[in-house]
């Protein structure tokens, strides 16, 4: 579904990604794990088109999207939940969801999307008119995910959904990620919480300083002694 081949990205003189290749198949949850600064977020941002690549090819469903503008990539069916949630703080919950449905052409589709988001996250329905800045961290994460789902993406890019959340909420969010995946959305997940990520993913890639060092079945990676030592705290 998505293939990234030999991707390189620089921030000025600093090399953020070097020759990274990975792929995501229809229906999968693929996790990218690695330490802070390994380049996980950069991969997602390059796929979304907000960070330019220096070399390499990104293709989605057979079309090259490497140099496509971000707003056109969304129309291809890829949507991102950015790191730190990035809800529009001064806009209401409802307006945030409407923004998520920006590419939808009819008001009816937007209304249906909002209803779907409220079924998935009933808490948001209670806070529909509140500015997003008044929501708790967990609620903001729900809003950011609901907002991204508004555009009916076929591939959802999730960047650190567990960041700054209480352990109970993290589990809840991951349950919802699995639910979203089961209802037919393919997911690429970036996480620092490697054990959580590996427990729900089908496959995973391990990144170190901008390069893929390990990849494979998520269950096998979780049993790999090196991974356990470096990322699972053993």
């Amino acid at each position, binding site marked *: 579904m998505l293939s990234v081949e030999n991707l390189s990205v620089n921030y000025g003189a600093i090399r953020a990604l070097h020759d990274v290749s990975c792929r995501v198949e229809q229906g999968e949850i693929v996790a990218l794990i690695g330490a802070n600064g390994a380049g996980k977020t950069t991969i997602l941002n390059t796929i979304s088109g907000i960070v330019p690549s220096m070399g390499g090819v990104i293709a989605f469903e057979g079309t090259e999207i490497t140099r496509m503008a*971000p707003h056109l990539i969304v129309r291809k069916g890829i949507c*991102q939940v950015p790191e730190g949630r990035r809800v529009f703080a001064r806009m209401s919950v409802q307006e945030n969801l409407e923004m998520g449905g920006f590419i939808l052409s009819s008001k009816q589709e937007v209304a249906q999307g909002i209803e779907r988001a409220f079924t998935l996250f009933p808490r948001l329905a209670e806070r529909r008119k509140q500015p997003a800045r008044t929501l708790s961290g967990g609620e903001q994460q729900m809003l950011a995910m609901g907002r991204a789902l508004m*555009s009916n993406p076929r591939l959802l890019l999730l960047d650190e959904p567990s960041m700054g959340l209480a352990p109970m909420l993290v589990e809840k969010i991951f349950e919802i990620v699995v639910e979203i995946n089961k209802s037919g959305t393919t997911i690429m997940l970036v996480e620092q919480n490697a054990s959580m990520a590996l427990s729900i993913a089908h496959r995973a890639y391990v990144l170190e300083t901008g390069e893929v060092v390990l990849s494979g079945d998520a269950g096998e990676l979780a049993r790999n002694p090196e991974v356990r030592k470096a990322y699972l705290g053993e």
Partner: protein
Amino acid sequence: MFLQQLINGIALGSTYALIALGYTMVYGIIALINFAHGEIFMAGAFVGLLMVGVFKLNIFLAMACAMIFCMIMGVVIEFIAYRPLRKSSRLSAFISAIGVSTFLSSLALMVFGANAKGFPDQAFPSQQISIGDADISTLQLLIIGVSAVLMISLEFIVQKTKVGKAMRATSEDYNTAALMGVNVNFVISFTFALGSALAAAGGVLVGMLFNAVSFNMGLMAGLKAFAAAVLGGIGSIPGAMLGGLLLGVTEVFGVAIGYSSYRDAIAFAILVLVLLVRPTGLLGRKILKKV
């Protein structure tokens, strides 16, 4: 006397507010002080004058032409002078804006000459209406009415329409708006078009109010409107409206109680006083920079 001066102040203040809106919207979306905005206002006044004087259009049509002309002008300026500098420091873009400003006022000087020109009398046959002891001209009512209609329309566009919501989203978070499928370049052009149209309307109204249109009218009006935008809290649309009105009213009252030689200083004195107490302006929000 009080009512008289209040109406004078509101009429003048509405024109400041119209110009201030352009500064505040552009700043809100790309954090640039569009120094050339005053010259767009000047261009609007000249186009209005030409339409009334040469093409004999009525004042509303002339104003519409001025607004359309300046919308295009604003979009072109952004495209040529600011877009290539989008990723450079804001200082470079600001210097580019000063360049555009100087270029446009010099161009107007070359084309129209140094003398101020007035609107022909039949452009808007103004009459005096007496309310109590106040004499209010229909021109002042026109200014207040047109400004109010334009500002309400703007508020409607920004709050209720799809492109308005995209503007607010882009001004909050440029990248995330793009991730939602918003074409941020289009939104930025649209913001320049809206701000420039309001400035053009302001230019025509001010041209009639003072019966003078000149190549350098954009400088002081632009500075005062900028002061109004900062006073209200730069980036805030209601702030620009409030700041403009407040500045206009204070200026008129300052003149009325005898400080007419400090006319232009009054605006900036208020600005300094307010910023000492509230650095974000009256309705401005504290900007938290995330690293």
